[in-house]
C-alpha cells in the first residue's frame, strides 16, 4: 500500500470512529498527532531512521538532502559515519565518511547528470566537494586573498549554494559572516556581507540557497539567524530585501516547489528546546509552523513566533522529498535520529 494512501485511509477510519460518540473516543487505542497549519499539516514518525547507535552513531544531525535516486542522505558530525544514506522509509542503505569532524552543511548539486555533495566543515575550516559516494573532488579553503581574514581559523563555513553555472556561494555563518562567491574552478569572484546590523550584513549567516522560483531571475536567500530574518541578495551580492520572521531562529532555507522550508532551531526569546519548522508561501509569508503557534499577520507584520508543542528540540535542517514529506534533522537533541513528517 502506498504510504500517502495509507494515511488518508487511517484518517478516514479515525474520523468515522470519532463521530460515533465521545464515550467511544476514549476507547481509541491511539489518535495520530497532526501538526502544522492550513495547507501544510503533518503526521509524525519520531523513530524514522533510528539505528543501532553502537554501529551507526550520530552526534548532531546537521543536514539532509535527497539525491537523484530518491535516497535520503544525512550529515552528522560523528566521524564513525559522517554520511548515512537511507531510503524514504528509513531503511539504512549505506554509510561513509570519517574525516569530517565539523560536518555541518550538506548541499546536493547535479552537474552534467551526476550528483555531487558540498560539505561545509566548521572544524576543518573548509568546504569539500565529493562524489555521491564520498570521493573527494575539490576543496574550497578560506578566501585569504580577499583580505577579510587574518587566519584560516577565522573562517567557519556553515553552508553552500551552487548555481547552475557551477558558481559556489559559501556562507561563513560561524566566522566573520561573509558570503564568498567562487567559480567552479575555485577562484574567488566576490565577497560580501560581513558582521553587523545593517541590511547587507549578518548576525549568524547560517544558511544559504539559490531561490529559483522565479526562473528568469534567480536570487540568493540567506538566513540571519540571530536577527530572525531571511535576506535576499542578487547573485552579484547586492542586498534586495529582508523577510522578517520575529521569534524564528531559522537555520537554512530549502526551496521546494513554490515554498521555502526552514528548520527553526529556537523560538520566541531563544530559549533551549523551543524549535519548530517554518514553511513560507510564494509571497514569503509564514503559512505553517509545525510544532509552533499559528502564524498571525497584523498591520505590524508577523506576530512573534513561539513553540506550542514539544515535538522538536532543536531542528537544524529540513529535507522535503518527492512525496511532499519532510525530514527534520536536529542539533543537540540527545543524539537522536531524524524525525519524518508525513503530509496529510
Amino acid at each position, binding site marked *: *500500500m502506498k*504510504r500517502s494512501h*495509507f*494515511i488518508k*485511509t*487511517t484518517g478516514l*477510519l*479515525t474520523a*468515522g*470512529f470519532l463521530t*460515533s460518540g465521545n464515550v*467511544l473516543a476514549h*476507547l*481509541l*487505542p*491511539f*489518535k*495520530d*498527532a497532526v501538526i502544522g497549519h492550513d495547507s501544510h499539516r503533518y*503526521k*509524525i*514518525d*519520531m*523513530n*524514522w531512521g533510528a539505528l543501532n547507535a553502537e554501529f551507526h552513531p550520530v552526534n548532531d544531525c546537521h543536514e539532509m538532502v535527497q539525491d537523484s535516486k530518491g535516497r535520503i542522505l544525512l550529515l552528522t558530525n560523528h566521524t564513525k559515519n559522517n554520511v548515512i544514506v537511507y531510503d524514504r*522509509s*528509513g*531503511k539504512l542503505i549505506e554509510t561513509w565518511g570519517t574525516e569530517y569532524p565539523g560536518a555541518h552543511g550538506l548541499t546536493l548539486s547535479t552537474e552534467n547528470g551526476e550528483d555531487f555533495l558540498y560539505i561545509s566543515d566548521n572544524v576543518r575550516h573548509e568546504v569539500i566537494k565529493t562524489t555521491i559516494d564520498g570521493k573527494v573532488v575539490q576543496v574550497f579553503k578560506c578566501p585569504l586573498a580577499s583580505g577579510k581574514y587574518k587566519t584560516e581559523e577565522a573562517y567557519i563555513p556553515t553552508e553552500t549554494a551552487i548555481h547552475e553555472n557551477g558558481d559556489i556561494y559559501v556562507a561563513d555563518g560561524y566566522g566573520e559572516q561573509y558570503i564568498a562567491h567562487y567559480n567552479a574552478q575555485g577562484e574567488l569572484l566576490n565577497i560580501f556581507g560581513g558582521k553587523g546590523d545593517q541590511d547587507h550584513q549578518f548576525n549568524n549567516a547560517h544558511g544559504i540557497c539559490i531561490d529559483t522560483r522565479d526562473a528568469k531571475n534567480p536570487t540568493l536567500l540567506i538566513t540571519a539567524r540571530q536577527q530572525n530574518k531571511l535576506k535576499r541578495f542578487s547573485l552579484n551580492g547586492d542586498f534586495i530585501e529582508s523577510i522578517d520572521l520575529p521569534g524564528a531562529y531559522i537555520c537554512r532555507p530549502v526551496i521546494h516547489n513554490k515554498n521555502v522550508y526552514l528548520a527553526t532551531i529556537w523560538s*520566541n*526569546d*531563544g*530559549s533551549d528546546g*523551543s524549535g519548530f519548522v517554518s514553511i513560507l508561501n510564494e509571497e514569503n509569508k509564514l503559512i505553517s509552523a509545525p510544532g509552533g*503557534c*499559528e502564524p498571525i499577520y497584523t498591520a505590524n507584520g508577523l506576530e512573534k513566533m*513561539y*513553540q*506550542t*508543542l*514539544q*515535538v522538536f528540540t532543536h531542528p537544524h535542517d529540513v529535507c522535503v522529498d518527492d512525496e511532499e514529506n519532510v525530514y527534520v534533522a536536529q542539533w543537540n537533541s540527545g543524539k537522536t535520529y531524524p524525525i*519524518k513528517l*508525513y503530509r496529510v
Partner: protein
Amino acid sequence: MRIITVLMSIFLLWACKEVPKMALANTNDFRLTMPQISASNLLFHQKTNVSIRNSLDGATIKYTIDGSPVTKESVSYAKPIVLNESATIAAQTFHPDYQESSITMLQVRKVKEDIGSADISLVPKPHEKYKASGAKSLTDLKKGTLQFTDGQWLGFQTKSVVINLNFSEARKVSKVILSSLLNHGSWIFLPEEIEIISENKQVGKLQLNTPTESEVSAMHYIEILIAPKNYHDLEIKISPLNKIPNWHPGQGTGAWFFIDEILIE
C-alpha cells in the same frame, strides 16, 4: 452490535498499522510547551497588564495569581489580566489530547517608592559587555529578562560592587531590594553578602545561602531589611560569590554578579 463494530474498527486500525514499518506518533506522546507570560511592566506604580499565550487549537491555559499551585480546576485564561498589586503569576496549558505543559511563573512587583530622582553612583564600573546605561539603569524601572545579554543588566566580575544612593531629602526606608539574576550555566550567581551602610554605620546586612546545583535560572528580588528611619544616603556594598562551588565546572573561581534594578520600601 455496536461493541462488535468498535472492536472491528480497532482491529482494522491495528491491522492497517502493521503494513508499513512506521509508527505514527500519538497525541499523548507529546507535552505542550509552557505558556508564555508577559507583562506590560514587570515593575509598576499603578497597574500592569499580564497576558498569557499558547495558541494551540483546543488548548486551555489555567492560572493563579496568589502563589497557589495551578491545577486543572484553576481559573481559565481568557483575556489580559489587570493587576494593581505585586503578584506571582503561575500558568499551565492543558489539552484534551496532549500532555499538560510544565508550569511557568512570572513575578510582577508594585513599586512603592520612586527613587528615579536620587543621585546614584557605582564603583567599579560594570563589565564593558554588560553595562546597560550605567548606574542610572538601576533606578529606571526597566527590568531585564532572563536573557543576560538583553542590554538591561549590569554585569560584574569583581570582588566587590559598591552602590551609593543620595536622596535630595531624607526619606524613611526599612527595606532595600536588589533585582538580581541567577543563571549558573552562564556562571552568573547571586552574591554572597550584602551590607547596607549609612553615615559610616552598618544599618543592615544579609548573607545568602551557598548556591546549589538544583537552582534553575531565574530573576530574584533580594530583600535586605534595615533599621527603619529617615536616611539621606545609603551605601550598598555587595560581595559577589568569591568561589564557585565544587559541583560547578567553574569551581574555585569568581562568579559573575548581575543586577538590573534597586528598589526601596
